[in-house]
């Protein structure tokens, strides 16, 4: 193998690829060749660095210089300056928003300072398409170690670590494994749930794209512990890059005998297959997922029996989420004690969050349990975009709730989030500012639930539709205060009576916004006003007579001829005909049109 002096790591996650990441790699390789450095410098396509806001990211090894927002045109400077002359390309360094100083070391950036990367340990560090790079980072050592222990001992280690399911429910992982182990059956299965359906969550995709072997290794460890010899990864078809990297990883693991028969001479057989999702949110629920893998509609069934007892093809099936698996090698290699030393009393270790929305640093972060929302949003996230005011943060996706200012200092863990009316979910975290209307946000999530409800049970199928209609009525300004009571009642009924997790949690966005933003709901029903200025029906476009010079530009652009007025005289908008499209406001050069 060639002995390279320098490595140039280029983020090749979905986000950075969409911003010409691949062109950057090709240009870098061409420049390196041109400068005769082909023998000394290697360009590596890595998984996600997490700092998506500033992508595409390029990192230089060994000196750890971290370049942000790189374009393909920058390749020549990076090579001729950094690699040839040894000078940092200042203009591509990260600028600290507070001190305005350039920062070259990612460890000194606010975004990375408070992070502990366990599940993401290899993302942005190794080439996910090369198994040797994973092995060099102690890859498959945990599997080797597991073989020297009894299955019960491995499971005890995981129970002791306190690891809980990272897909949302938070069920103790070790216990789940133990249940599957104890059931007697001819064939058992290990399933990896990679049907990441929460809009705004992308940690599973990033782990599979950046470190696919960690998932394969953990599935094999699970197989050894539970007695399963077949692994299945259920992944969204919308993730082509992750699928491709998984396929490569499976192939390479088979070639090295890390999957297949008699792995590492242990006498243990295990292999993994990929199954594709087809765009159904409910398939994140484990019974639905299993039905989907069997070729059926992804409808849930009542638990018990739990999949651990009767799952895929009626056999005991251990289902864990991608991030849960990614933590297993760390626990086995570093010890349960180390893992349990991080986090809160009942939530151990770290959690990966996909930080998105109106926050300065959008990206993928991994933080210790027990960190506060304030630290995540303001220290790591860099605060709210465009200097606006923080209003709410939505955690847990369509099943979670909207938290507010008063929740900012609560330590984040499974139980605290639940007690605050939200949930951990898979770790989506969407930040909202003063311009977001909470009724609209609740409506947005309900719209999602209505579309994704599988239709099997009535509370979810019919109830959520009615909830949506009630929210629509509120945002149209046609609801009364009494409707708010009905909204709450129905939401509680759906929660209590739905068959699966989807319906049992779908009213959360409604209930949490009603609890935390009651004034805003009241403004909609009593004053018929939308304080955030989002609900179209409650808005009025008005022309201010003073700045209006009567240029008639708005008259010409109005699709319904709602604007009238003499040339060079102030114009007016007929509120009866106005459809509130906003075209006039976009067109007006004199800022004479405003929303009231």
């Amino acid at each position, binding site marked *: 193998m060639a002995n390279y002096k320098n490595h140039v790591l280029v983020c090749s996650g*979905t*986000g950075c*690829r*969409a*911003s010409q990441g691949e062109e950057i790699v090709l240009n870098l390789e061409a420049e390196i060749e041109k400068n005769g450095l082909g023998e000394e410098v290697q360009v590596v396509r890595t998984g996600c660095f997490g700092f*998506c*806001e500033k*992508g595409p990211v390029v990192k230089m090894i060994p000196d750890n210089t971290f370049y942000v927002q790189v374009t393909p045109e920058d390749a020549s400077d990076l090579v001729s300056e950094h690699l040839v002359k040894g000078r940092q390309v200042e203009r591509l360094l990260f600028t600290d928003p507070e001190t305005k100083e350039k920062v070259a070391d990612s460890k000194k950036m606010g975004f990375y300072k408070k992070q502990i990367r366990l599940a993401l340990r290899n993302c942005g560090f190794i080439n996910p398409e090369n198994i040797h790079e994973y092995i060099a980072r102690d890859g498959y050592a945990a599997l080797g170690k597991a073989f020297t222990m009894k299955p019960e001992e491995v499971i005890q280690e995981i129970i002791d670590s306190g690891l809980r399911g990272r897909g949302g429910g938070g069920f103790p992982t070790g216990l789940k494994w133990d249940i599957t182990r104890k059931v007697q059956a001819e064939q058992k299965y290990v399933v990896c749930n990679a049907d*990441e*359906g*929460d*809009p*705004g*969550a*992308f940690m599973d*995709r*990033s782990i599979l794209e950046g470190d696919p072997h960690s998932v394969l290794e953990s599935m094999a460890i699970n197989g050894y512990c539970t007695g399963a010899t077949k692994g299945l990864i259920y992944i969204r*078809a*919308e*993730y082509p890059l992750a699928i491709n990297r998984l396929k490569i990883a499976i192939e390479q693991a088979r070639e090295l005998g890390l999957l297949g028969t008699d792995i590492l001479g242990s006498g243990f057989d295990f292999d993994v297959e990929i*199954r*594709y*999702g*087809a*765009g*159904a*949110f409910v398939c994140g629920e484990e019974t639905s997922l299993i039905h*989907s*893998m*069997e*070729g*059926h*509609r*992804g409808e849930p069934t009542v638990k018990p029996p739990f999949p651990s007892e009767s799952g895929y*093809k009626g056999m005991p099936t251990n289902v864990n989420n991608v991030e849960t698996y990614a933590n297993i090698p760390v626990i086995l290699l570093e010890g349960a004690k180390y893992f349990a030393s991080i986090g809160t009393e009942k939530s151990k270790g770290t959690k990966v969050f*996909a930080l*998105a*929305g*109106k926050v300065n640093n*959008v*990206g993928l972060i991994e933080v210790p349990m027990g960190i506060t929302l304030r630290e995540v949003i303001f220290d790591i996230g860099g605060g709210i975009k465009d200097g606006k005011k923080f209003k709410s943060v*939505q955690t847990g*996706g369509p099943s979670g709730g909207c938290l507010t200012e008063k929740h900012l200092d609560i330590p984040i863990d499974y139980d605290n989030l639940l007690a605050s009316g939200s949930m951990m979910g898979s770790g*989506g975290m*969407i930040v*909202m500012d003063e311009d*977001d209307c909470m009724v609209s*946000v609740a409506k*947005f*999530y309900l719209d*999602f639930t209505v579309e994704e409800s*599988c239709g099997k049970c009535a509370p979810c199928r019919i109830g959520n539709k009615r909830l949506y209609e009630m929210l629509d009525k509120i945002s149209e300004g046609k609801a009364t205060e009494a409707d708010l009571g009905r909204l709450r009642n129905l939401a509680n009924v759906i929660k209590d009576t739905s068959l699966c997790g989807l319906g049992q949690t779908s009213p959360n966005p409604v209930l949490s916004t009603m609890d935390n933003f009651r004034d805003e709901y009241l403004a909609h029903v009593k004053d018929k006003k939308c304080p955030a200025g989002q609900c179209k029906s409650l808005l009025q476009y008005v022309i201010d007579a003073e700045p209006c010079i009567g240029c008639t530009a708005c008259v010409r652009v109005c699709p319904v001829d709602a604007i009238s007025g003499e040339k060079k005289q102030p114009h007016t908008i007929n509120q009866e005909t106005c459809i509130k499209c906003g075209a006039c406001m976009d067109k007006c050069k004199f800022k004479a049109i405003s929303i009231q």
Partner: protein
Amino acid sequence: MADITLDADKVEELKAVCVKFNHDGGELINVLHAAQIIFGYLPAEVQVIVAEGLNVSIAHVYGVVTFYSFFTMTPKGEHPISICMGTACYVRGAEKVLDEFNKLLGTKTGETTPDGKFSVSSLRCVGACGLAPVVTVGEKVYGRVAAADVKGILAEYGA
């Protein structure tokens, strides 16, 4: 429903897929994925072939096809446009972008233009939230799209 004639080569290709999966009904979703790649969409005629190839009822195939949003029974446009309506994109103004595409193309979400050139659909999170709002045209991903950019994007495809 007007009968359509399927390309004989493609039909053979699909039948071969059913053989590859051992006529196993449990592989239905995998087979439908392959069928959609071959034909571009899953009209009733294709579903019949799949049902026969896997020894399952046509109703079962139809039930699965209509359950999953990834499967479509109408052909997509030559340039399928998808606007991400995940939460991150939504709060950064994806709805306005979607409206602008529909306005300029004269379509409704889920429709294809009469000339078959463009189809507009919304999708749930491509996981590139750092680039919100995100639009994909075919395989190409556009990040941080504003309503004002829509005209330019369409122009790239000769609209």
